[in-house]
């Protein structure tokens, strides 16, 4: 009768102690935590960005651009194949040329097309174009599929598309490369460690805690930073180019900050790109004294630039960053040293940023901001304080109510169970590295109100059993046994909804799901096991004739 197995008592004591040990660091100042012996846990609970302040940025990699680039290359390379020219180093006799016309990409950039003049040649042309395909490498190795899907369309047209496997693989590669580049860029600035994570197929999440400037972070992370050196096309007068007369192989680009020449017509082909830079540093223009970026080419880049500048003395070239012309200087003499300088309308800060971006390299594809959430650290601190106040008020109200409703002993037991429950929630969250958010605090406070439910169910049942004429001990025993089934059933539904919230919720709401689901589990422990041990201990001490409830 009212026998409580020893393992239950032990479990209650051990779990409560562990809870205290893991939760304790949260209550200690940093200095104390640092001086604690290393065998004690010193981790504190992770605070969400809404509590510690910071920026959450979600980017999407525009993989369409990568697909388009691949198809553009194919559209260029198929010329050689159709003409029957040999590839560098290819053996054997040259093939017969196939006549074709109308080569190019559809406006959305997702299909490359070429029209074959002679219907009889279409099959041979498809065969030749297919040699341009390369195998797709999946996560686990080669997939056995090629990246190009070459098909005949009506009217002697051949259409080339990327296969789905190729798109997936290219997107995955672009995301991985982007994360690498972003990490290098952020490391360069030496700012407080932001977390960079891949999300879904084509998304990247950057979370920067603390006092951070989201605008700067966005420029640093989101800028493609593709630098190219291209010749200026001077075959058409600027006014005519602006009016829409653009020669094939050239493109009209914006030149911001230069009202005298808002647009520059440049050749599409890049002489050298940012990939060929070995160094980039902020500096000052020797003549004007204005901020500039100095750079150095690697061997191949230096040679290419030397050749191009030797051939084009007197002409202009353009330095282009992400399709915007930074400057378009004239080549006065061959540039042989492999060194150079980008001047334009820079401030010291923007020169610094550009140098950082160039050193870290370009993103393989542009990133688009999908979601941004920034909370100032002061607001975060306010939220923590408000949450703490709310918790204290809720706790006080519930404590007073429970004591009034169930008396010092049973009310007290329920409150002790509740307190341990809160400590266990905090300990569990700290130990598993869960994130506490503002809605999470709300979840904790809600737990204060809801967790006593199990105690209420048990007490009410005891009351009833006693009214039905059972002895005190039997009433207690029956109260537990019968109430537990109900408590379990009632909590499973709560746990189900909390888990769903965890799966579907994002950010702060997920924090709510954390506290709620951990709270359900710990409250089962404290309400059932702990309450039982405490009530049994009380009974053995006092041997009451009647229940005080």
């Amino acid at each position, binding site marked *: 009768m009212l026998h409580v197995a020893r393992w239950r008592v032990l479990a209650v004591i051990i779990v409560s102690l562990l809870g205290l040990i893991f939760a304790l660091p949260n209550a200690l100042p940093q200095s104390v935590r640092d001086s604690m012996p290393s065998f004690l846990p010193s981790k504190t609970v992770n605070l969400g960005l809404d509590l510690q302040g910071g920026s959450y940025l979600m980017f999407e990699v525009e993989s369409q651009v990568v697909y388009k680039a691949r198809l553009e290359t194919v559209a260029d390379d198929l010329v050689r194949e159709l003409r029957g020219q040999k590839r560098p180093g290819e053996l054997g006799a040259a093939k017969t040329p196939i006549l074709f016309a109308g080569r190019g990409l559809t406006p959305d950039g997702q299909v490359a097309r070429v029209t074959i003049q002679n219907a009889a040649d279409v099959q041979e042309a498809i065969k030749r174009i297919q040699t341009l395909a390369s195998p797709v490498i999946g996560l686990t190795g080669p997939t056995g599929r090629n990246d190009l899907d070459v098909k005949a369309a009506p009217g002697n047209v051949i259409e080339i598309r990327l296969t789905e496997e190729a798109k997936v693989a290219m997107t995955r590669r672009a995301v991985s490369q982007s994360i690498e580049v972003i990490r290098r860029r952020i490391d360069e600035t030496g700012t407080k460690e932001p977390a960079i994570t891949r999300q879904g197929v084509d998304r990247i999440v950057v979370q920067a805690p603390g006092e951070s400037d989201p605008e700067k972070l*966005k420029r640093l992370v989101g800028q493609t930073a593709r630098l190219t050196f291209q010749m200026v096309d001077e075959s058409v007068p600027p006014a005519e180019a602006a009016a829409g007369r653009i020669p094939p192989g050239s493109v009209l680009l914006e030149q911001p900050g230069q009202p005298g020449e808002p647009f520059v017509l440049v050749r599409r082909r890049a002489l050298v790109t940012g990939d060929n830079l070995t160094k980039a540093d902020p500096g000052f223009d020797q003549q004007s004294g204005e901020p500039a970026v100095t750079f150095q080419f690697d061997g191949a880049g230096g040679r290419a630039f030397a050749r191009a500048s030797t051939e084009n003395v007197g002409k202009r070239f353009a330095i282009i960053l992400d399709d915007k012309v930074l400057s378009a200087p004239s080549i006065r003499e061959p540039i042989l040293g492999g060194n150079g300088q980008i001047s334009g309308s820079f401030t010291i800060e923007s020169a610094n940023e550009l140098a950082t971006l160039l050193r870290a390299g370009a993103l393989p594809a542009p990133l688009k901001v999908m979601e941004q959430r920034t909370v100032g650290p002061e607001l975060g601190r306010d939220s923590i304080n408000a949450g703490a106040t709310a918790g204290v008020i809720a706790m006080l*109200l519930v404590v007073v109510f429970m004591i009034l409703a169930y008396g010092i002993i049973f009310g007290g037991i329920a409150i002790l169970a509740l307190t341990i429950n809160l400590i266990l929630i905090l300990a569990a969250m700290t130990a598993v590295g869960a994130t506490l958010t503002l809605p999470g605090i709300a979840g904790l406070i809600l737990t204060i109100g809801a967790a006593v*439910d199990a105690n209420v*169910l048990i007490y009410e049942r005891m009351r009833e059993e006693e009214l039905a004429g059972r002895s005190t001990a039997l009433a207690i025993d029956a109260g537990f046994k019968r109430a537990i089934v109900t408590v379990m059933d009632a909590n499973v539904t709560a746990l189900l909804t909390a888990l769903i919230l965890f799966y579907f919720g994002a950010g702060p709401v997920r924090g709510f799901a954390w506290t709620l689901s951990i709270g359900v589990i710990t409250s089962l422990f404290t309400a059932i096991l702990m309450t039982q041990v405490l009530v049994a201990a009380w009974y053995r001490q006092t041997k009451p004739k009647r229940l005080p409830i």
Partner: protein
Amino acid sequence: MKWPFIKLIPKNTKFGFVRFSIPAAVVSVVLCIASLVSCFTLGLNFGIDFKGGTVVEAVWDKPINLAQVRERVGNMNLRDVGVQDFQEPNQAMIRFLPPEGADASATVDSVKAELRAIMPGVKFPRVEVVGPKVSEELGTNGALALGIAIILVVLYIWSRFELQMGFGSIVALAHDIILTLGFMSITQLDFSLTTIAALLTIIGYSMNDTVVVFDRMRENMRKYKKMSFGDIIDLSTNETLSRTIITALTTFLALLGLTVVGGETMQVFTVIMLFGVFIGTYSSIYVAAPVLILWPPKRGAEKAAARTEADARP
């Protein structure tokens, strides 16, 4: 000593709940229809989580001239601009949608620059930008979460109790969700991600209540084999009434504490939860149980369940 000081509920209540179930059903149906009508006419006030757009909170060291802010931001070619005061006179909340096709994130930076120009030193403690694609996904996920939660909870209740009780809980859940949505629609409270969290919590709470009553009904059905089903419901509801009210009260008290937490989203959360606790308690007594009068569980079926539970009984 005379503990407890307060006896909220007499130890043996004998309210005739079932007697009022027809008027209660009429009230519930009318309220549900009113809620649905409100949802379809007034609509829900979806926040940027589900509609997409931008919210900027600004704090300055002097009172903010809202009219000036409205004029400057209004001239920026943005859509759906809303400027309102927020808690203190030196705080303002600006909402807008970026121009069609423009980059939302870049737009917010230019709005911040514009505000800095008229209010040097202004700070932005909160900036939220949600793109159209993300808001669409958040909406789909929210709806999915609600749907799956309802299905799982009902399946669980069906497996633990009877098919009829599963049906009763579905009706109660639908009732709670429809009324809460109606409440949100009439009050035009901001419908955000946190609201979905609140709705799911209400589902959990309401089912918790329903389970406790059903549990007692199952027990009484075994105990009093000859009792009419209406009387079983009355008896079970009365026996659990004390617990129902005490738990509702402690949850209510805790939520009362939560009202001090600042921020619009948390206030909305608290208000919805308070409403939900009330509705959830009501629906377990007057929706879930009376449905069983219309479609009572078979009185033989519980015997099988009784046998499996027999070992657990003292």
